[in-house]
């Protein structure tokens, strides 16, 4: 069903109508609109679109991308194994990691330094997507102001989740959520998905595969 082009020029009169020229009827009409909103807001005070910000806060979704959290294991050590994937995935180049050898053999590596420069960070969540160890999440905390540039780099102490303390404003963007079909890494019982090849074979058989063109494959002089 193709779209149709519709000329809307003549839906409005070319000349200014008498009622409009008089001002008064239109003023009354306009007042009715604004007064309607005013009364509606008075009656439904709880549904006001504005909030009193520092006291009240907007309720953001569980996917909100706020300040980062470094997740911990049950024994309090960081889950991060300093693989540099998040630093590599970061489009703003704001993550700095220095890896060290962990005294506990099973953990192998750990981050000695893990800094996020909050002045560079664009809050895109690529680090969360890139982490293969479920070690970095984001919270719903968006109040990240500081007084000087020297405070803008958040280190492990600022980022690591303190055990039993909870996270300010709650968890935000993360790899899995309770109850929506995504699975935490602790659950190894769920069957794995077969690697996808993009269904190229089927598409090609149906003639629906757009093969990418080679550069200047077909050239002819005019």
């Amino acid at each position: 069903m193709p779209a149709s082009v519709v000329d809307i020029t003549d839906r409005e009169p070319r000349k200014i109508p008498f009622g409009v020229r008089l001002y008064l009827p239109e003023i009354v009409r306009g007042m009715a609109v604004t007064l309607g909103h005013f009364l509606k807001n008075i009656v439904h005070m709880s549904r006001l679109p504005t909030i009193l910000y520092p006291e009240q806060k907007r309720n953001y979704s569980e996917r909100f991308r706020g300040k980062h959290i470094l997740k911990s294991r049950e024994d309090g050590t960081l889950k991060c194994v300093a693989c540099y994937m998040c630093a590599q995935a970061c489009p703003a180049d704001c993550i700095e990691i220095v890896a060290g050898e962990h005294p506990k053999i099973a953990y192998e590596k750990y981050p000695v330094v893990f800094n996020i420069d909050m002045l560079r960070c664009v809050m895109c969540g690529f680090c969360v997507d890139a982490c293969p160890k479920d070690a970095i999440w984001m919270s719903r905390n968006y109040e990240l102001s500081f007084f000087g540039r020297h405070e803008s780099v958040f280190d492990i102490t600022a980022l690591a989740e303190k055990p039993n303390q909870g996270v300010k404003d709650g968890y935000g963007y993360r790899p899995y959520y309770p109850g929506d079909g995504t699975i935490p890494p602790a659950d190894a019982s769920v069957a794995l998905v077969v690697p996808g090849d993009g269904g190229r074979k089927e598409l090609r058989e149906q003639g629906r595969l757009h093969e990418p063109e080679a550069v200047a494959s077909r050239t002819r002089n005019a």
Partner: protein
Amino acid sequence: MTETAIGALSPASERVRERLSPAFPDGRSSVADLDLPTIETDPAAWPGLARFLRDDPEMRFDLFLDLGGVDNLRRPGKRSRFEAVFHLYSTSRNEHLRAKVYLDSEKPEIPSVIDVWPAANWFERELFDMFGVNVTGHPNLRRILCHQGFVGHALRKDYPAGQRWMCTEEDLYVPELARRAAEEADHYETVVVNLGPSHPATHGTLRIVARLDGEKIVEAESEIGYLHRCFEKMSETHTWNQVIPYTDRLNYCSSFINNVAYCRTVERMLGIEVPERGQLVRTILSEFSRIMDHCVCIGANLVDTGALTNFWYLFQCREEIYSLIEACCGARLTVSYGRVGGLSRDVPPDFVERCRSLLRSIPPFLADVDKLIKRNRIVWDRFRGVGVVTKEQALAWGFTGPCLRASGVGYDVRKARPYDFYDRFDWEVPVHRDGDNYARYLVRMAEMRQSLSIIRQALEIFPASGPVSANDWHVVLPPKNNVYHDMESLIYHFKWVMEGIPVPEGERYEWVEGGNGELGFYVLSTGGGSPYRNRVRPPCFPLMAAFEKIIIGSRISDAVATLGTLNIIAGELDR
């Protein structure tokens, strides 16, 4: 006539070749068949060819879309180091065409085509600024995006991406009209007014210098580039997916449309298809983004003209849409929701419900704004017959989007070349013949209602479950569960992060209907994990270029209203 390569051309390219070869028998121009019919030529033949392309009854490429340069320094085997790549559109025949002009490698030079397409003016300045191409015959060839203290040409491949230059006070540009007015100050009663770069009425950092006679504008010049961060150079240093957060910041009022436009381009190069559900999410959120874009445009515009109430009504719609988008991806303004091959994650379970509640809550606000504005005497006096752009002017200046449709040309990408599901929906392209500020207001209001209608139809066919991303692990990240427990999946994951997507060698221009016009991405790949060149066709660049001509003869307060209805977004203008 010699054949340089075997194989038949596509019908569209063949038509171009058949028409071109008798007119230009010298053999300097050839037709190549890429994603678009592509004419390859050299600078000497270009002005004549350009005139032919515009005037020939079977060509009629009347709309100048884009001009971007390419530096082939790291792409050996090309005819010359520099290319100027033009993208043209024919409104009467609904066809796109690319013209490549190969420039001299040592001293790149190209004749100006301003007399053929006036829209080329600023694009040619950008070509000079970014690549150091000398555009002969250009009346005002100076830097446009970079400041006057800048040394070198940023998009050349031998220019280091991290190089910066300070702009000192001596480097600040003073337009010729301001200097002249100062000399004549004693015996000629005009005043030079400087609007911006930081001015509440400019909605972004841009500067307009106008010479006033009384309250009338006699001359004006606009200066842009204050928000320039060379998005195109930065793309070259990032992987294909890392470019997505950068695209958010182009037109930040409708950042999701930018995501979609860019991802579509790369997807077409890869030859992959997004599943139906993913396409529909993209359609629905793109249309919501369009509504937000128009809300910002109309709302802010009306604030400039003194009607504050409408701003609150329209911004309430926008806030509610932002909440929906935030529930999908976690951010309100700079969404980064699209990924090459689909979306970053599936929509929340209550997505359809929330969309439907928005469909119910937005129309009353639009109706209220219409009640306050449409038949308002003050608005009629301020908007009607002000900032008039005729159909011919709009085409010559390279307008697209609502501004072109308000001047009477029914070109909408969603109709002209339906992508995703737009051909399945029943909707209208509103067109107005007047071309003034009031027409642009009406067209935008009508478009918002059409967008709502598209969303309503998309929700009807929206599948309850299914993938939103293509099932190709070279392109999209494998499911997290696999990454945690399976080595092969982890390797896919690792390659995606470390190396980027293997996009095959080639080039492509893909275009969608953005918030304020045709948003195109011209992307070149050499087969690596990051773009070789990523050129964006910014819809408000030609709009802003025309602004200094539209406002001549109007009052300074009307210029502010006109700037608002053109919808200039500095993030996209300056890139």
